[in-house]
């Protein structure tokens, strides 16, 4: 099975987020970055499918030069090679991202394309589905189980409120993977050494990728509730909270 896994580099959750001067994005010069979490699960699923069915796993990332950091990490975990689409990617909206990824993988005839279901930064939840449309292949989203058999796939989709559904479709196909589908493996020292010899093909982003949406203001959300903030030492705060829950809220 020839599998492409699309991965994105996002700023780490622990990062202190600061809005840029134009209020159009964050100041990411001094941020630290990591692999988008649902993409890590997509990569793991790709590696497991390869272990079961043979073939290769190719990671593909559209982003600035620093994205090689997550590409290397994916190679160290076991991906065979990588494609890095570098260049001007609009403001990173879903249509330009999907366009960039499509141009990089359309000629490779992958049997299966995996992406995370959404990213931790923009959270569009669109790139995978738009990519499927660009490639002309069927898709399914929020996937919690993948069974491949000959030319078809049977996958378990997560629905709201604890419901699930199986869907069958022909290959080639695209799936967007939900966190928790499997248990992640981490790179071994051997993997890290081996990754150094693996191919990362850099391709330019195609011309004319116009973003279809842009941020005109970026700001912290407003509180909807009046929160009573409790300060002091841990012991003090704990005592105050217990008193408030007993006497004011009357919930204990």
């Amino acid at each position, binding site marked *: 099975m020839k599998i492409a896994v699309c991965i994105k580099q996002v700023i780490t959750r622990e990062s202190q987020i600061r809005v840029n001067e134009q209020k159009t994005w964050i100041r990411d010069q001094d941020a630290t970055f990591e692999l988008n979490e649902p993409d890590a699960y997509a990569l793991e699923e790709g590696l497991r499918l390869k272990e079961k069915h043979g073939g290769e796993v190719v990671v593909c990332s559209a982003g600035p030069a620093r994205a090689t950091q997550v590409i290397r990490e994916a190679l160290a975990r076991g991906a065979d090679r990588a494609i890095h689409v570098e260049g001007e990617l609009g403001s990173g909206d879903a249509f330009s991202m999907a366009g960039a990824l499509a141009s990089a993988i359309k000629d490779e005839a992958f049997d299966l394309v995996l992406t995370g*279901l959404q990213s931790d930064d923009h959270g569009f939840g669109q790139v995978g589905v738009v990519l499927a449309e660009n490639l002309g292949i069927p898709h399914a989203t929020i996937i919690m189980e993948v069974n491949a058999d000959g030319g078809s796939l049977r996958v378990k989709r997560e629905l709201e409120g604890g419901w*699930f*559904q199986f869907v069958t479709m022909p290959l080639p196909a695209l799936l967007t993977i939900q966190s928790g589908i499997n248990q992640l493996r981490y790179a071994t020292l051997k993997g890290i050494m081996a990754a150094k010899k693996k191919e990362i093909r850099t391709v330019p982003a195609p011309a004319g990728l116009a973003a279809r949406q842009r941020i005109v203001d970026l700001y912290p959300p407003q509180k909807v*509730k009046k929160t009573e*903030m409790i300060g002091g030492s841990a012991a003090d705060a704990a005592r105050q909270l217990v008193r408030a829950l007993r006497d004011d809220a009357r919930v204990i």
Partner: protein
Amino acid sequence: MAGILVIAEQTGGTLNRASWEAIVAAQSIGGDVKVAIAGREVGAAAAELAAAEVAEVIALQHAALDLYTPDGYVQALAAFIRDAEPGLVVLPHTYQTRDFAPKLAARLERALITDCTAIKAHGDGRAFTRPVFQGKLNADVVADGPTPHLVTIQIGAFRVDALKKSGRRAAVRTVDAAVDASAIRQKPEAPFKEARQAVDLSQAERIVSVGRGIKGPEGLPLVQALADALGAEVAASRPICDAGWLPMERQVGSSGQTVAPKLYLALGISGAIQHLVGMKGSKTIVAINKDPDAPIFEVADYGIVADLFDVVPALTTALKE
């Protein structure tokens, strides 16, 4: 039609709450609002929708739309939207919409702005507010390119009780959807629930819920001790269940359980929207988080900005005093 087209959602003929919320969002913009609903036979659902103050309800019907598939829905809706030429298409941000709306927008070559929580005037047009960075920031977003633009409305962002109803029921029109059944590639099976859930968190009076702030499973006994002292159930955010530290059935949120206890204690939970939708109906919410900007504080009644490893044991002790 230059107005707004809302795409309502039904399962087995039953409308969901999110569809009504999407209609409220459309009504809040003003102008001509129409509602379309797709399925095999959706006359009854369409008649129900006609109670809203809207210009028209369209029942978009085809035998191949009996069970939802993205291929079927995109064919039907793309053809209908091209024909109707609305200025804006509004959809509820459900799992189903997440599955087909990006494809629909791509097919139509139009902008799609997902999970909007507010709509504002911006210049001559509109900006749509959506959370970014897991709810840590809000972005006001403007769509570019030709209309119709597509937007999905986050669950709970607009209130159903603000729905404008009409004394005179809206006209319902039935349209044969343009679907080529042989071009539908997904074969869906009937939805199901995993094995019976042993814990029914929806009935719990008090819940101590733990998030990624706990770092690892070795921190859980601390949380259990606090829950015991409170007579509470232990619950968790998704990453805790994903990692297998607690069983899936203890997950609170859009893909887990919806809870409404008297007391909900969120320990080291950031407050992503998918978590909030599952617990914001709780009577009293307490958040303990070391990040003062964590979105969970937006819904909390009481907040403590601190390391949970300091506060949780102190709380257990204070409860026993």
